């Protein structure tokens, strides 16, 4: 849209990552997704009188792990606080969260934008419990409450207002998503709500130092919607100001169906949360020794892995980027290179080409791939030793994918072995030459292009099984 002046956009994201623990943050109830309503909500989660929350060590470990990965200060001493508000899916009337003293302090993340990198500050990350779920349909005018999710551990990751476009916001969100999955602290499943995002958006005239009034957009749960919701909100604010209006600080809800944001008025009144330290929980102490233990468990992080893949395997930027986009993909690649002993470029191309296309088509990912790395290695070995050509290999891959058989079984069963028997190739070449005297004449008169016709005819006759290099060599000799 055309604007009467230059505008700058200022965006900060708050991301809630559900921590991949077995049990809840303050109780021994299970966190598994998809259980029957209220079968995983115990007395602590229900906020019954007389219960006491006890902090889950794994949740703390995961938060610290994340903090180390973003090179943040890990608080040696952090405190849980009560955030007070009333909503039926929050039975206690407060959410246990962290306020003044979060476990993870200032850190940062590098994102890639327009070919360069940009450092995005992370203000803090704190531990808190999730609320339950309200269902508003089909209960004759009442709301149904499922408290299975109540008490699930969350890490709320708050960025600095360093993002300057919806595109940067998406790049940042993707990078965080990749990081938490690498660390194994969150499964990143956005459909199930394991990774959720709120965005703070404001605009200011180009060059102005002070921030404009910000609006919080809640509930944007896919990468696509983050971009759309932010862009929509930017337009709304600019239009408002250019028409003489003023942006009010408020919370808006993104409606994906209508692609618009709308005000959540009820939230304004409730925005006074009256935080205070939770008397049921003592301060959390994180010792140097505890940190050392966690440091030892840290996996190789995405950026480091990407650099290593380029240096060690000679991969180009694009392949290195794709193959390190998840730990499972990277592990598959390294296992494939080891098992096949083939050139890493061949392995990379087969993974980013045929394998990923087949996975996408079947709506699967690498962790659920029916083509295990051992079987794919078997195929690559047969390309490498010239048992089959690259073209036939695609056919073999297809058959292996459908049948679950090994490459050797498919090649033997379908008779796809490359013909290197020069006698057999020679006989066919002779036959083709005899049948196409006109073309032979043309070739001998200097029309080089006709050569391709002969190669095609021979390959067709041999159902693609001839070694192309051999065919070329012999044809040249015969046509002279």
């Amino acid at each position: 849209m055309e604007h009467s002046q230059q505008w700058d956009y200022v965006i900060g994201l708050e991301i809630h990552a559900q921590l991949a623990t077995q049990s809840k943050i303050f109780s021994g109830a299970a966190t598994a997704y998809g259980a029957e309503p209220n079968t995983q909500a115990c007395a602590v989660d229900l906020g019954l009188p007389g219960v006491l929350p006890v902090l889950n060590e794994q949740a703390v470990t995961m938060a610290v792990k994340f903090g180390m990965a973003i090179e943040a200060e890990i608080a040696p001493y952090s405190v849980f606080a009560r955030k007070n508000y009333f909503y039926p899916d929050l039975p206690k009337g407060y959410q246990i969260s962290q306020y003044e003293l979060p476990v993870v302090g200032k850190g940062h993340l590098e994102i890639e934008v327009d070919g360069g990198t940009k450092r995005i500050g992370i203000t803090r990350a704190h531990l808190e419990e999730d609320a339950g779920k309200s269902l508003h349909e089909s209960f004759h005018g009442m709301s149904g409450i499922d408290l299975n999710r109540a008490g699930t551990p969350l890490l709320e990751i708050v960025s600095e207002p360093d993002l300057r476009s919806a595109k940067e916001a998406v790049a940042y969100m993707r990078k965080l998503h990749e990081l938490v999955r690498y660390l194994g602290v969150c499964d990143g499943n956005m459909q199930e709500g394991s990774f959720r995002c709120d965005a703070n958006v404001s605009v200011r005239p180009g060059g102005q130092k002070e921030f404009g009034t910000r609006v919080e957009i809640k509930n944007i749960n896919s990468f696509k919607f983050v971009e759309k919701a932010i862009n929509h909100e930017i337009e709304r604010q600019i239009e408002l100001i250019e028409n003489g209006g003023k942006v009010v600080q408020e919370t808006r809800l993104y409606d994906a169906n209508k692609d618009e944001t709308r005000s959540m008025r009820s939230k304004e009144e409730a925005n006074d949360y009256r935080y205070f330290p939770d008397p049921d929980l003592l301060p959390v102490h994180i010792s140097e020794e505890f940190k050392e233990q966690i440091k030892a468990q840290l996996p190789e992080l995405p950026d480091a892995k990407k650099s290593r893949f380029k240096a060690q395997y000679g991969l180009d930027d694009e392949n290195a980027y794709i193959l390190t986009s998840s730990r499972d993909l990277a592990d598959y690649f390294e296992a494939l290179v080891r098992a096949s002993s083939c050139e890493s470029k061949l392995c990379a191309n087969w993974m980013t080409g045929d394998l990923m296309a087949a996975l996408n088509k079947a709506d699967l990912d690498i962790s659920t791939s029916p083509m295990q790395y051992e079987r794919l290695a078997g195929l690559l070995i047969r390309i490498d030793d010239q048992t089959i050509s690259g073209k036939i290999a695609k056919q073999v891959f297809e058959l292996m994918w459908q049948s679950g058989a090994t490459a050797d079984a498919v090649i033997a069963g379908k008779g796809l072995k490359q013909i290197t028997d020069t006698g057999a190739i020679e006989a066919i070449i002779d036959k083709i030459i005899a049948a196409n005297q006109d073309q032979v004449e043309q070739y001998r008169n200097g029309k080089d292009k006709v050569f391709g016709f002969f190669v095609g005819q021979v390959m067709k006759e041999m159902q693609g099984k001839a070694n192309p290099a051999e065919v070329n060599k012999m044809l040249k000799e015969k046509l002279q």
Partner: protein
Amino acid sequence: MILTAEEVKKIAYLARLGIEHQDIESYTQDLSNVLDLMQQMGKTGTEGVLPMAHPMDQVQRLRQDLVTESNGRQNFQAVAPLVEEGLYLVPKVIE
């Protein structure tokens, strides 16, 4: 007086406490007295002193990440006013 009657009404609303109109004045007085004391305490020099998060001078014990609770829905829902299909039913609240 530190607080106004309006502020007391707002605090009562945020805490969902119903207070009678004739009691507002005495609440305003009582709560203001508490804040008076806070102000007095605020004058004490506390530079370099870590704010006390808990009166017990101990740190939080952590529990192992194990599922120790089984499904107790039937017992819990036996005392709920209304349930349906495993859900607790409450008056409709919608954003």
